[in-house]
């Protein structure tokens, strides 16, 4: 009704600029980032098990793609599973009916999600706020229905179908160790890509759209195009996650597109700290740990999830990574006060 109101609340919340805007990307720092991320996942491997960590990493890729849309562009989608499912189904069907080549299958999965994103993005991106979430939800429901019912002939409905990949030179997806390394490589690749994208002028532009779209429009940018591009990009990365999960489980079923699973990715993105790729990684791992291990110890884990979501919303908005960052900045500031000659650290 009144157009000014939601914009006001939005800008109130994000008064301080996002942390990433101030820090300049440095090449050497990015290299260490990769090493640290890879080392963290490698360290997790002996504690958990390799196939579980593979699972975690696929989910982390998915959370990053969601975070691009939610954390960076400020559009909460309640239907992001659609892209995961599209990726999984496209590559799975390609392997089943056309050829067992894994590389081609991955490409087909990404292309499928990309094409879908391009098409429905034209409609979805026009909306904002609650409308955006709900129309995503509606499309997700339509997709879920499509694979369940009218396309039953090729997708085999609720039962799903097995995916058998033939090995292609050194790419042997039957080998869990290879799968592990391949997924880790994909994770680092996606991280690098999204890091580049979000620190580029384009990334700053989409963050500005989150802050105040009207002003960005006023500066002469075609915001519709940038929102659409982000939507397609997030869709592609989501499709990659779906493809990897199809290859990982050797199985595709409608659960990969289930509307109710969307809460998982929203939760992961929030608990880690939205609007930050490290936050997405931390949140993805944290959510997977909770959903994998908590049901063993706590019977009513859905209730636990509910209460922790409430705590996050009311008390813990910045998430795990946001708080780590806060502590880090505090330490830096203390150091800067003690020794003024190291003023560089304060500026950064």
């Amino acid at each position, binding site marked *: 009704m009144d157009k000014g109101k939601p914009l006001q609340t939005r800008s109130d919340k994000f008064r301080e600029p996002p942390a990433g805007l101030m820090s300049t990307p440095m090449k050497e720092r990015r290299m260490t980032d990769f090493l640290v991320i890879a080392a963290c996942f490698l360290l997790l491997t002996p504690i958990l098990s390799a196939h579980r960590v593979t699972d975690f990493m696929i989910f982390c890729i998915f959370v990053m793609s969601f975070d691009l849309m939610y954390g960076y562009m400020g559009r909460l989608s309640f239907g992001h599973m659609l892209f995961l499912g599209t990726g999984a189904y496209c590559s799975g069907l390609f392997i089943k009916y056309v050829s067992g080549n894994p590389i081609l299958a991955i490409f087909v999965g990404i292309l499928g999600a990309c094409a879908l994103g391009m098409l429905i993005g034209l409609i979805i991106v026009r909306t904002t706020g609650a409308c955006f979430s*709900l129309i995503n*939800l509606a*499309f997700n429901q339509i997709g879920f229905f499509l694979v369940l019912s009218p396309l039953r002939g090729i997708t085999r409905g609720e039962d799903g179908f097995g995916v058998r990949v033939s090995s292609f030179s050194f790419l042997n997806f039957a080998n869990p160790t290879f799968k592990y390394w391949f997924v880790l490589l994909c994770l680092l690749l996606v991280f690098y890509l999204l890091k580049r994208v979000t620190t580029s002028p384009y990334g700053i532009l989409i963050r500005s759209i989150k802050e105040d779209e009207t002003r960005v429009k006023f500066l002469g940018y075609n915001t519709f195009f940038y929102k659409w591009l982000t939507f397609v990009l997030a869709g592609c990365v989501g499709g990659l996650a779906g493809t990897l999960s199809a290859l990982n489980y050797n199985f595709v079923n409608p659960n990969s597109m289930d509307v109710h699973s969307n809460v998982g990715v929203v*939760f992961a993105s*929030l608990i880690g700290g939205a609007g930050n790729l490290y936050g997405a990684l931390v949140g993805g791992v944290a959510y997977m740990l909770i959903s994998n291990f908590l049901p063993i110890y706590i019977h*009513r884990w*859905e209730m636990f999830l*509910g209460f922790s979501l409430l705590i996050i*919303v009311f008390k813990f908005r910045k998430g795990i990574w946001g708080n780590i960052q806060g502590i880090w900045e505090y330490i830096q500031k203390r150091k800067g006060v003690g020794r003024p000659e190291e003023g560089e650290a304060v500026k950064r």
Partner: protein
Amino acid sequence: MIYTILYGFTIGAILYFISIGLSLTFGTIRVINFAHTLTYTIGVYMLLTFIGYYKGFFFISGSLAVLVVIPISYVIERFIIRRLYGESLDYTFIATFAVTLIGVDTIKWIWGVSPYPLSDPIGAYLAVWGMTFPLYRVFIVLIAILLFFALDLFFKKTIVGKIVVAALEDKDGVRCLGINVDKYFSIVFILGSALAALGGVLYAPISSIHPYMGLSVLLLSFAVVIVGGMGNLKGTFVSAFALGMVMAITARYWSQGAETMVFIVMAIVLIFKPIDI
């Protein structure tokens, strides 16, 4: 075909009961309430419990169930929704979804996950022009129409209703008159929740009862509210019956497609009439 139309009206009536609260909550406090159909589910389970005590007295247990929902919805309003006034939409979304998770899990804790069947409480049929209609469905449609006029009276004649309608138009303007708007909003919230519970109680005998029953209905009532316009009372009435009819007619020819058709209609409406929120 006549049966299909009756079926459509029944679904439409149920959707109307549920979405009126959603529409009012959105129109007044701009909170997208995911927890709305939680009260619907609670109402149904309360009905189950009471029907065990008062064997066969459907209407007594039904009204008791609606009464029990009132304090529960007050608690939700007081501790969750009231803190979300003026927050951005994503956080209200997530917080109310968390409430749904907690509520559904509590229901599973108390009543278990297995679905319960419930039989038609009237069981009589109405014979008109050589066709027989289940009286219960006719009864639901009549209650919905009655409720529409009652709500119309409520919003036009009573002072509470007038304040709410005014606040739908301009919240700050009403606040400037020295009226504690939040108090009236909580009344509206409780009214909406009680109506959702009523919808659940009436719908329970002709559907299956399980803890997740609220979620699928929630998506449908979102569609109703979006098609009818957020906070538009007459629009909600019309769109509830129209979408109910869409569901019934689709179900007649293609039973799996019924719910999805509603979303397709919603997507089309959003394309041609995007809501700026």
